[in-house]
């Protein structure tokens, strides 16, 4: 396995703008901290191997290792990853009093999971001023307070790391594909530690095409909305070319062409649009703003969704074929774009001692992904 330490993490990821601020390396030790969306190393550590590098979703992620661990089969590179079922879903009547964006599926599932004790705490993302901040929620009623898209990565995994130290044993996470890749890395106990405990019992992944660098977005937001308070952020589906910021002063539109340059390189080499390593994944449902697309991947995810439906927390209906087709195309295109870019930047399957890969996958799978998508 290609595991290195903090110095390599800085050289291979932080200095190359590959960091998406997921927080996997933060709060493991005193040396990596996150502030206003930026991860920084306070002091170098001398270890040649560390959990920081091992967990990082942009450092030597071997997709076969993960696939073997989770699906007991090698990585196939299919557009949506492995799944059992895809449905349309939305929050049920038990969630009527809660406020959420779009369908509310994520809030519903996390609320039930906390209520039932399936998880002892939930790592969610909140907003403080303009900045997305992580929170470890222990009360079900506090879940919906964290609802809503942020489009900025928060170091949500840092509260997982702190939660482990605080003694939580069955945490739930709502995260982006990169964050869930990191959780998947964590679950493999990459450093073979004797004291390893898998403290994450439930993962809910979000669909994500890209996120924005917080530090670069903040000045743009300030310019566009001034002193107003942000209440929500949304990106209407294509052909819309805007981001809509909902403030207490009204809605402000920001053209996407001003947002795109603020996307970190790490997002450009990310092949995962639907959080392939989650128990369930949730995204928008094209054409129906009050519903979500829900992908169920594991037995734990399946069980939770069934419970939620039975108890009135969740409503589901079949997903129209068109939606599934479009979703697959979009996901396949992201995968192809990202892998081509990663390959061209020398970040795939590297062999040189001083060059680290972002991802490792079998060359034949890589070929398939690139060729298949070309057929569309």
């Amino acid at each position: 396995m290609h595991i290195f330490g903090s110095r390599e993490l800085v050289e291979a990821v932080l200095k190359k703008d590959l960091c998406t601020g997921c927080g996997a390396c933060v709060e493991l030790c005193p040396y990596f901290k996150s502030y206003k969306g930026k991860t920084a190393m306070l002091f170098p550590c001398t270890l040649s191997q560390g959990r920081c590098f091992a967990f990082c979703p942009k450092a030597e992620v071997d997709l076969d290792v993960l696939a073997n661990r989770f699906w007991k089969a090698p990585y196939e590179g299919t557009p949506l990853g492995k799944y059992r079922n895809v449905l349309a879903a939305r929050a049920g009547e038990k969630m009527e009093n809660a406020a959420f964006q779009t369908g509310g599926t994520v809030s519903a599932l996390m609320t039930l999971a906390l209520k039932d004790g399936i998880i002892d705490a939930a790592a969610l993302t909140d907003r403080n001023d303009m900045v997305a901040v992580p929170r470890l929620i222990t009360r079900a009623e506090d879940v919906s307070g964290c609802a809503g898209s942020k489009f900025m990565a928060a170091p949500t995994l840092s509260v997982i790391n702190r939660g482990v130290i605080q003694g939580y044993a069955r945490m739930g996470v709502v995260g982006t594909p990169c964050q869930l890749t990191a959780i998947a890395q964590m679950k493999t106990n990459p450093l073979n530690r004797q004291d390893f405990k898998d403290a994450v019992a439930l993962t809910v992944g979000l669909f994500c095409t890209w996120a924005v660098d917080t530090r670069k977005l903040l000045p743009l937001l300030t310019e566009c909305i001034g002193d107003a308070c942000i209440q929500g952020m949304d990106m209407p589906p294509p052909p819309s070319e805007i981001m809509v910021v909902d403030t207490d002063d009204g809605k402000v539109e920001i053209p996407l062409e001003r947002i795109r340059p603020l996307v970190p390189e790490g997002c450009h080499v990310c092949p995962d649009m639907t959080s392939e390593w989650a128990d369930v994944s949730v995204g928008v449902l094209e054409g129906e703003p009050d519903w979500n697309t829900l992908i169920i991947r594991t037995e734990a995810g399946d069980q939770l969704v069934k419970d939620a439906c039975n108890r009135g927390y969740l409503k589901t209906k079949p997903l129209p074929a068109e939606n599934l087709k479009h979703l697959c195309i979009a996901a396949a295109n992201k995968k192809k774009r990202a892998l081509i870019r990663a390959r061209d930047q020398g970040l795939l399957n590297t062999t040189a001692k001083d060059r680290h890969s972002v991802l490792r996958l079998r060359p034949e799978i890589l070929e398939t992904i690139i060729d298949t998508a070309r057929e569309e």
Partner: protein
Amino acid sequence: MSHLLEAKAGDRRLLMGNEAIARGALEADISVAAGYPGTPSSDIIESLARVAKERHLYVEWSTNEKVALEVAAAASFAGLRSICVMKQNGVNVASDFLLHLAGSGTRGGLVLVPCDDPGALSSANEGESRHFARMLEIPLLEPGDFQEAKDMIKWAFELSEEILNVVMVRSVTRLSHASGSVVFDSLPETDKTAVFRFDGPYLDPMKGPVLSLPVTIMHTRQQEKLKQAVAKFEESPFNTYIGPETPELLIISSSVCHLYSKEAIHILGLTDRVGLLKMGTTWPLPPKLMENYLGLTDNILIVEEVIPFLEENVKILAVELAPQIGIKKFFGKKDGTIPTVGEMNPDLVVTALCKILAVENDGVPEIYTRRAQELFSAGAPQREMTFCAGCPHRASFWSIHNVLQMDNRQGFVCGDIGCYSLAMLPTGFSTLKTLHSMGSGAGIASGFGKLGPFGFNQPALAVCGDSTFFHAVLPALINAVHHRSDITLVVLDNSGTAMTGFQPHPGLPVDAAGNSVPAIDVIRVCQSMGAIVRICDPFDLEQTQQTLFKLLERKGVNVLILKQICTLSPEKKAGKNFEMTVDEATCIGENCGCNQLCTRVFKCPGLIWDKQENVSRIDEVICTGCGVCASICPSGAIKNKEVA
């Protein structure tokens, strides 16, 4: 009773050079002493402050050296004798006033004592004060040993009153902080009354106004005063010669360097071949005396520190006297015989003599030297300079460094002179990125804070101490506020001028002699300028960091005062806040999750690293119980228990 007073005339005592100077000032019947703390000069004012009451003196730690000289000058204008004390770079600070004072002249004797630091044993420079005497055209004397350090002061006061101008007596570290035998003289008992006469005609030196104008007239007078001094120098008892009547080589030296030269001659057994002329009056050089000794031989070695001041002056004279004395061969700094950098020592003079006279030195057998060197490499780990255990600066720079890293905009800190200068080293996490003179950090940061229009977007911080705040930071801070420069100034307030021995300053309610005096409130001063002020306890890392984050986002001038008393202060030495322990079972040691944070990174000398057991421990002898290590320990293994 201070030991400076308890001996009588004729008694012999072992005194530090600075104490000898202080005793000399007392024997010269001074009334006023003013200075600013600076190693190696501080003990002079401290010694005088201790006897101020008994000897009816006024002794002051002034805000800075310029003000100190002005205070001493006032006493002189009122007919009293006064002494002004500072380290070498203090003269730079006082030099504008000194320039004008040398022009206007003085009345009561005024002796300026700069203590230089060749080799920079306790300085950020090895600049010199000697050239100020030449540049500003005042007499310069240099004591060569401890007896002279005392005797020369009285002589200097007599000279000062004869020529009615300031006289410089220059000491160096190896004299000021060394000790030697001194025979005491009597202490005078005279009554003095201070009166400032100014109604007389313009050019009346004792009764007119004190002016350096009209400049050309006063400058002419100044030069005549110098000629008067030279006449006295020809007969001065402080210029001595030991050696043969016709030496092969003449060494001309001054200050403590003459002791090194004497030692070198003795080691090599060259007492009948080498003569040593020790000059105590080094500016201007008395030409008749010089002609006499330069005529003894054609080979001259000049031994001094640091720059070739004496060497150049001797060479100029030699050129002028060439028709009488012939052409000389000079050895010294210019030809590389003596190093041009660093302090002198006997061995450097031995090397020079061996080279010039082609002799060998029977030193230590080479086999011994080689073995000692070998064992030194294994057996004597180098000692890095470090903040003391419990020093608030370690905690302050921990917070500043970490906040800047998290802020992630390449922010940096400009520093100035004090214990916290050490923050350029790992002990302060290498946080300081510029280091120059007193107060310069604030001035430089104020400059950086105006570079926004040129695309500059790095947060600029400055640190200063509570003493340098009053010394030199105030004008820079006013500059920043007035010009709307975006900076954050961190005042490290440890309630004293710590690096030089914990002297008081205007921010404290006590003066040099221990009297109760009003303290100037740093907070109100900054606020009245229009700066935003916050105060934190640097030992409270969380609060300090949160406050600093907020200030870094603010434009304009922010002042953060980190207030915690120095660990060496008398109050602090009395007791610990906490009893510290390490729970070895919980300690993660060098493994992932800690990697030896407390001993490897925080580096407090109160901690011990046990590599075998992979745990940290507390060194009870050194730990002062500040509790900061417990705040940073990631596993919670370090615990602090409040001491009752």
